[in-house]
């Protein structure tokens, strides 16, 4: 999971956050100190104009 800093109390806002050992990530998320960075979904393949078994 990738996190981004959302509070200056934790660091520079917008920087990636890598939790150290012993850090309660759930509490940071709950308090709004970090946010989960959404990962881009892979693009769907383009639709083919013809069915695979369709006669041309």
């Amino acid at each position, binding site marked *: 999971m990738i996190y981004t800093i959302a*509070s*200056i*109390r*934790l660091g520079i806002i917008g920087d990636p956050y890598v*939790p*150290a*050992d*012993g*850090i*309660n990530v*759930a*509490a*940071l998320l*709950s*308090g*709004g*100190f970090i946010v989960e960075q959404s990962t881009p979904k892979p693009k769907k393949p383009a639709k083919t104009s013809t069915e695979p078994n369709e006669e041309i």
Partner: protein
Amino acid sequence: MATSTYLSNATVQINGVDVTDQVSAASIVRVIEALESTSFGKTARVYVGGLENSTLTLTMYNSFAASETYATLAALVGTSTTVTIKPTSAATSATNPISTLTGCYLETLPIVNAALGALDTIDITFTGGVYSVATS
């Protein structure tokens, strides 16, 4: 000559969050539980070291604003976390060591401690965990 360190500019982090401007007092006490090992033939009690059970007590100004005291602590009650404290905000060194309690437990959190005409302050105590100190 004996000297004292006054925590006038100490820095405190709870769960990685800098709460220095919300803390007015801090006390970290390292405790190694004493296990009695006195046996017959002894004329005085004898102890050996048991489990470590250090504590860090903080007095904090309560605030429910975003990224302040309540937001930092609310989700930590009943869980373990890491807290650090340093005598001054200067760089970590032999004369400004940083103390860390890793895996310490927050059992209680006062929600409101209201008094007429006074700031809302709370005392919290982190218990247990592994104590370490770094000078660099």
